[in-house]
């Protein structure tokens, strides 16, 4: 195992390094999200079929994408915590769940709002939306299990197992929902599947995705630092930190 791996395992080191990284990521997130939003809202050309309502995808697609990759992050962190008994990994996994759930809700809500002008109804049992809904259910299960178990380490291990089971299931769920959708739905056009999206349309989308990654990093670090402080509250370094803060 390389040295940084062990360092990462130390909550104290982790607290310090995230403290140093936070401002940079925060600035990057704000800048990228602002540029992406303004570009997407004001400068990107309107879609020839949907007009201007397509501009919602600059929010919908990145959040949907993030909700999935946060689940992956959570499961991997959980696995690391499970295998190497690494406390920090447990804390990362725990901090991921609420962020992922929030972004999944946002993806669903923007999907619904986008659906109204596009499909004429707030909710359509479209394959992507349905998969996202199930992903949200998976997140809710993880959060519910984590909050139901009192012992911190048991909660972390149990949720890691659940997250991994969910991870194995996600491709199966996705495949089955896609298949179910083609069976029951007349094909609707899908904006993201259109072959040629001009660069002035997808570049802002890319910027938004990177911006959301930075945003996720910021929130994750904020939550992680809280977790570290709470769990390490008895240690001498947290005590010193508290005394310093008191001034």
């Amino acid at each position, binding site marked *: 195992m390389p040295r940084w791996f062990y360092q990462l395992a130390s909550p104290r080191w982790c607290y310090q390094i995230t403290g140093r990284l936070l401002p940079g990521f925060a600035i990057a997130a704000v800048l990228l999200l602002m540029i992406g939003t303004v570009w997407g809202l004001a400068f990107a050309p309107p879609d020839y079929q949907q007009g201007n309502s397509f501009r919602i995808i600059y929010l919908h697609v990145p959040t949907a994408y993030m909700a999935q990759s946060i689940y992956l992050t959570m499961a991997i962190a959980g696995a690391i915590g499970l295998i190497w008994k690494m406390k920090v990994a447990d804390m990362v996994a725990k901090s991921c769940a609420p962020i992922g759930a929030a972004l999944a809700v946002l993806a669903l809500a923007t999907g619904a709002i986008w659906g109204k002008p596009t499909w004429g109804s707030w909710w359509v049992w479209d394959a992507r939306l349905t998969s996202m809904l*199930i992903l949200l259910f998976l997140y809710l*299960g993880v959060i519910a299990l984590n909050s*139901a178990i009192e012992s911190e380490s048991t909660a972390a291990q*149990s949720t890691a197992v659940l997250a991994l*089971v969910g991870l194995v299931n996600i491709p199966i*769920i996705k495949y089955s929902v896609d298949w179910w959708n083609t069976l029951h739905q007349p094909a609707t056009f899908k904006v993201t599947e259109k072959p040629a999206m001009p660069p002035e349309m997808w570049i802002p989308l890319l910027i938004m995705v990177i911006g959301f990654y930075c945003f996720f990093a910021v929130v994750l670090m904020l939550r992680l630092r809280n977790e570290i402080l709470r769990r390490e509250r008895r240690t001498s370094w947290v005590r010193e930190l508290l005394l310093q803060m008191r001034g």
Partner: protein
Amino acid sequence: MSAFQTKKLPELKPGFETEAFSPGKILLATLKRDVKLAFRRQSDWVNPLIFFLMVASLFPLGVSPEPKLLSTIAPGVVWVAALLSTLLSMDSLFRSDFEDGSLEQILVSPQPLYFVVLGKVLSHWMMTGLPLTLMAPLLGVMLFLPFEGMGGLVLSLLIGTPTLSLVGGIGAALTVGLRKGGVLVSLLVIPLYIPVLIFGTAAIEASLTGLPVAGHLALLGAMLVLGLTLAPLAIAAALRISVSG
């Protein structure tokens, strides 16, 4: 010292236990024990069956008694009812063993947990999934499911319900140490049941329209194989974690 009656114990033979152990034997023994337990506590397996019947009979009352409508929703209704009644019985899979200390005894024994768990899940299926499958045609008749659909109904349930027991077992194992595990198991497990539900109902619909059913059943079978190999591992890990807490 003289107060004691002297005891005699057989000599210890070091390494005595390691010689004989076979996965098949312990699986069979677990199966036998759990089926015996279920037969002595009838409510454990009879109640989910009654629930199955009741849920299915709610739909004509809640939706409409019109045969045409009912026959279109029948595959979904039977499958959803089967899914819910499996969930209902899931919580008790490990709970009584956990509460009376039997689970600890299993964990400290030199048996591979994988096979004990597999035995428990299989016996659970034999006491819930199998009777559900056998009862399903009755529900099919109540919901005006055409006769052509019966084969698909029974076969899809036969292959699909073991997967429900296996996946549900993971939820049961994760929540066994908790006082109010019941609803939680459903929250954890329902999203994981969705693929089984989709392909199960699709198999019935295919057999209704005369399309080949084999493809759907093969997919259900693939999920069952995946479940048989991976779910006991997850259940075993979850049990160790839950008991440890």
